[in-house]
């Protein structure tokens, strides 16, 4: 809850901001696969974003993707994560050979894991230095470290005595 310190804010402004925020959440996470209990059900990949003094760190859960199967593109303060999740039947050839197993009769008891191509666009809190962005993929977690653009970094201003 915001408190008024300047005296300029009007209660209706605050209400409008609150509605914008709620509406923004709805637009940012459309229920592509129904209203899941986890936000990741709506947007893939799910991301955690942290901001330190000199960089922005984006972590994304991309199980099943090998390095090289996910594209990371950064421009200014926008990041796009693109790729395709393999279908399990493509990745796992039938255990027994022979012509009969070319099209094995497969029954799915559960299909909770998503497949297919994805593209996720994120707006970072500040502009970053695209040339210095580094991405690592370990155990299905993508970590993208983006050093802030020089103009977005805090710099110390020397106070001189008169």
């Amino acid at each position: 809850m915001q408190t008024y310190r300047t005296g300029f804010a009007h209660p209706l402004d605050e209400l409008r901001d609150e509605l914008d925020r709620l509406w923004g959440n709805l637009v940012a996470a459309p229920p592509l696969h129904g209203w899941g209990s986890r936000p990741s059900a709506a947007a893939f990949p799910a991301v955690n974003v942290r901001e330190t003094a000199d960089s922005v760190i984006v972590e994304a859960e991309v199980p099943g993707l090998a390095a090289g199967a996910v594209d990371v593109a950064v421009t200014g303060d926008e990041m796009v994560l693109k790729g395709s999740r393999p279908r399990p039947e493509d990745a796992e050839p039938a255990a027994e050979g022979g012509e009969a197993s070319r099209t094995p009769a497969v029954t799915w008891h559960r299909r909770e894991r998503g497949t297919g191509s994805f593209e996720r666009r994120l707006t970072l809190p500040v502009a970053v230095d695209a040339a210095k962005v580094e991405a690592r993929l370990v155990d299905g977690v993508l970590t993208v470290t983006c050093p802030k653009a020089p103009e977005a970094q805090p710099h110390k201003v020397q106070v001189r005595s008169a």
Partner: protein
Amino acid sequence: MTTATTPREDSRATPVQPETRLTYQPNVDICDRGSEVLIVADVPGATAEGIDVTFEDGVLSIHARVPAREPSGRAVRQEYGIGDYRRSFRLGDDFDTSQIAADYRDGVLTIHVPRLAAVRPRKVEVRPG
């Protein structure tokens, strides 16, 4: 008796214990290929050494440990939590549980549960008379 041939989720066997970190249920695919059943679970962040797959009293349990990462800076957006994964499945008695095999790659755990040879569907060759 159809239930016995299908791995079924066993909520009683999934231990609920007080932990400081939350425990998550991984998303799974379960695929029946006749000779075996595949259980594929998304456990991003888990390490291969931290994964236990156990079979006891007809229940196959997955426990994948996710090492804590030291958070730096301030969270701007938090869409997923970090914690271990646990999920259990009840298996019927037509599986060869001594031959259960599991492999882990890129955050995905794949468990192969072979059917006993005696109950595998067999294709009968029809020969022209």
